[in-house]
């Protein structure tokens, strides 16, 4: 039987953050960013020999239009014991997300027409600013970090993308765009900042693929 949790409960919010990350990976793009607005309801079930399952009702907001929200129901299964398996996530969105073809194509064409491969650092900067032309790059990083967060979350972690330390475009001969990111993930329970290198392929019609990711060591303090 599933036990009802208060929407303020730590475990419920950890699961909600995982779902948000997963959603960014599955539905995000340079033209679309999704963020958690609120957790409406949460239930937790202990499934013997399998793991812990969460049933969540959340509200997400469109980062580009804060007044635009979408309701989501999701199920998360954290597998018992194994630290090497990603949790299973299933979700249903109520209604349609805004179409982003135009924004995605504009970004795609802009990058394709650059003379030199794109390189950037510290997005956002220390004061939280993101130059407008970097916003799609930032949103693509959310997609990529959504993947990493999904693959590495446990019932006792809560990850968010803290900052893009560095991003560089990798030249390609086909029509895909490729970016190599060095992102900083913030894990709330341990409070650690974890650098992660992620390589992402993207095409407006073919979506996102994370082709490579590896956790980096924390740099030695001076």
């Amino acid at each position, binding site marked *: 039987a599933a036990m009802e949790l*208060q*929407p*303020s*409960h*730590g475990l419920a*919010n950890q699961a909600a*953050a995982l779902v*948000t990350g997963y959603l960014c990976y599955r539905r995000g793009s340079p033209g679309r960013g999704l*963020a*958690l*607005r*609120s957790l409406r309801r949460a239930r937790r079930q202990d499934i013997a020999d399998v793991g812990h399952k969460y049933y969540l009702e959340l509200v997400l907001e469109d*980062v580009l239009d804060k007044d635009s929200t979408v309701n989501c129901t999701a199920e998360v299964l954290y597998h018992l014991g194994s630290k090497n398996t990603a949790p299973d996530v299933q979700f249903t969105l109520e209604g349609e997300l805004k179409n982003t073809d135009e924004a995605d194509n504009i970004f795609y064409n802009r990058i394709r027409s650059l003379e030199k491969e794109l390189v950037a650092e*510290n997005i*956002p*900067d*220390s*004061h*939280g*600013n993101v130059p407008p032309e970097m916003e799609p790059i930032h949103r693509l990083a959310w997609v990529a970090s959504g993947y990493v967060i999904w693959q590495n979350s446990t019932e006792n972690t809560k990850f*968010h*993308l*803290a*900052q893009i330390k560095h991003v560089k475009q990798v030249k390609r001969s086909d029509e895909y765009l490729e970016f190599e990111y060095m992102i*900083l993930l*913030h894990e*709330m*329970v*341990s*409070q*650690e*900042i974890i650098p992660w290198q992620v390589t992402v392929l993207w095409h407006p019609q073919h979506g996102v693929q994370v082709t490579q990711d590896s956790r980096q060591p*924390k740099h030695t*303090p*001076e």
Partner: protein
Amino acid sequence: DQVFHIVPETLQQVQHLQHLCSTLLLDLWKPQLPEDIRAGEDLHIRVPAPLVQEVKDNLDHHMISYKVLIPDVQELVDQSMSKERSSHRQVPEGYVYTQYHPMEEIYQWMAQIQQSNSELVTQHYLGKTIENRTMYYLQISQPTNKTKKIIWMDCGIHAREWISPAFCQWFVKEILQNYKSDPKISRFLQNLDLYVLPVLNVDGYIYSWEKERLWRKNRSPHMNGTCYGTDLNRNFNSSWGSTGVSYNCSSETFCGSGPESEPETRAVAQFIERKKSDILCYLTIHSYGQYILTPYGFTTEPPSNNEELMLVAEKAAAALRGKYGTSYKVGSTSLILYSTSGSSQDWAHMIGIPFSYTFELRDNGTHGFVLPADQIQPTCEETM
């Protein structure tokens, strides 16, 4: 000057608008040329103030509907100009509370605040940091005969949480600007003294400006200078070292070599210990997450006055939500956040301060620690 938004419906309307723009020499913002005006597409025209009424009459006469997109162009220009000016570093005279400030400027601000509000504010020495910098707090106190109860608020215990010191500065400004005119605030000050510590972890804050934006701890050296920093909010003497900490210096939640091992912790603890019988409420401001947290972090056992603590916290969250709809979660640290020990909030409650809260300000993770400066105002306004 006003900017009108029109969506022409017919070719006739398009032609009329093209004619209007060229005869009155109106400033087309969108599209750029009259020949590009199309039916069904957005048209933005800036109309000089003396022509506004004439243009409105003309449009009405021709049954062309319009909306005023910008009612006062000059106002918008002025607003954006003042943002430009403030990108130069400014000092208290015209101090910009909607920007983040480095420690040097915060020190200057404190001195200035005391100087210009000397009947109400005094700056006091609290102690020194590990790198030998001074910690100051501000006392806001209306001189009367009676001894008043104290509300203590500290900000910036964790270096990367920049919105926190920004809030303390905002808070002080609001009180000082409005204590004469706002009856709630003046009543408040008649009965209570406010003690505000704008930056507790001075060394860490400076380090997050100069070297590593996402630094959290203080800067105390360990292991022969090969590892730095204790998490000051795990260093207090409240079930120190029992849970939710690391004993390893390289961890972000390293609790130090013992309770109150850090000079910053000792400076705060000694002061509060001395004044504890008069302190009604201990507040400590953090980010992010949007929480109002009650004791305890090291156990799920509720504190003795839990009902009252929760009632007040719920009221605060409701008031906060009333401003911009931002929702804060309310509850005990151990239940709604994670286990911790050695936190300042728990310690304050354990020594007898009845109301002890940790605020985790905006946001929910979208920007996290790197909250853009344009959110300083709404965050502070709602928290106020």
